[in-house]
């Protein structure tokens, strides 16, 4: 199977070698969990390690902010743009949808001229402003994702989770539409906040099922070991497995 490495070695291991080529991959998490950083890292590593030009399509954050944030990790996005290897495009879901569904649009033009192979869309949450109807929303997202695949792109699509700790209660069908689904979560353990990553789904491939810790370091996202001796990680407030055993059996 043709894999597209994110360049984050332990994440690629979790994904069985990387994302599958020409697939749409959702990264969901609360603000500050590193969705955009993961996306930028995927694009940067694609350019410098795999010679695969990339696009970042942003619906909210100004490109100026990406250049600044990328610089903090030592990734010179302006220089990559000058070399024609990257474009950070600011637009809106309505315009990008019309554009990519049309023949000879702006995005298609960039893909053809630059030989783009990777794209990050930050974030898909903004599609919800196009319609209140969940059926129509799923259809809009489905068409947009299919258009990215039609262009031969491997995409990372971010989605905001409205809750800081614990599981999101927001209903969305996008998880059904995408090929893989990564969750980033804050977890409280012994009065400290840590970050947890899980590959929830990966269509057409085996993947790691365990929940890993990760950090945002000066080099970007760094995936670490799995959480040991804890359960209920995704609830945001895990308990020690021994405590839950006592609670379940001994106290009774």
């Amino acid at each position, binding site marked *: 199977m043709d894999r597209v490495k994110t360049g984050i070695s332990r994440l690629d291991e979790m994904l069985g070698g990387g994302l599958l080529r020409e697939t749409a991959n959702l990264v969901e998490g609360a603000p500050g969990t590193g969705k955009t950083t993961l996306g930028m890292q995927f694009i940067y590593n694609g350019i410098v390690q795999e010679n695969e030009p990339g696009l970042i399509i942003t619906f909210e954050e100004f490109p100026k902010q990406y250049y600044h944030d990328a610089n903090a990790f030592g990734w010179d996005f302006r220089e990559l743009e000058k070399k024609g290897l990257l474009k950070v495009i600011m637009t*809106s879901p309505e*315009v990008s949808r019309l*554009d990519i569904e049309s023949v000879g649009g702006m995005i298609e033009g960039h893909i053809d001229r630059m030989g783009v192979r990777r794209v990050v869309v930050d974030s898909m949450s903004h599609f919800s402003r196009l319609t209140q109807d969940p059926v129509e929303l799923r259809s809009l997202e489905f068409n947009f994702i299919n258009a990215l695949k039609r262009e031969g792109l491997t995409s990372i699509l971010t989605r905001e989770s409205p809750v800081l700790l614990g599981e999101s209660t927001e209903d969305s069908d996008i998880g059904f539409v995408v090929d893989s689904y990564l969750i980033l979560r804050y977890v409280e353990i012994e009065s400290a906040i840590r970050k947890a990553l899980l590959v929830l789904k990966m269509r057409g491939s085996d993947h790691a099922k365990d929940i890993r810790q990760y950090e945002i370091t000066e080099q970007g996202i760094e995936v670490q070991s799995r959480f040991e001796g804890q359960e209920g990680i995704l609830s945001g407030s895990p308990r020690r497995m021994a405590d839950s055993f006592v609670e379940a059996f001994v106290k009774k």
Partner: protein
Amino acid sequence: MALASTNGDDYTARLMDDMDPVLLDFVKTKVNSFVKWDLVRFFHENPHTTDTVENIAKYAGRNVTAVEPELEELVESGIMQKSLLGDTAVFSLETDEVMHALVDKFILACEDRHFRVKAVYHIIRGMR
């Protein structure tokens, strides 16, 4: 007294015209309003932005009715381009290298306080 005032105005005008003639023309004929100045700065900082006038107005933190005619004038003067996606008009920075270089030159010049003072003078005079 009136003569002195006229001479003073002439002196000020000469002082304010003391800049690169290319930039002087740019300020007098292309970026001749504060909204246009904001828009040119925004598109310089975020060069691959493509969007509707409503969304661009939001990005610029201004009213649509204030932004729309200014964007149209920037299209007429060759700084911006306008295209249609179906029935939707979208605006983006002109891709012409010469125009990009001119915008870069203007933004760079704006880092100098004296240039900014002169540019503001010409914009206000143009608004009279």
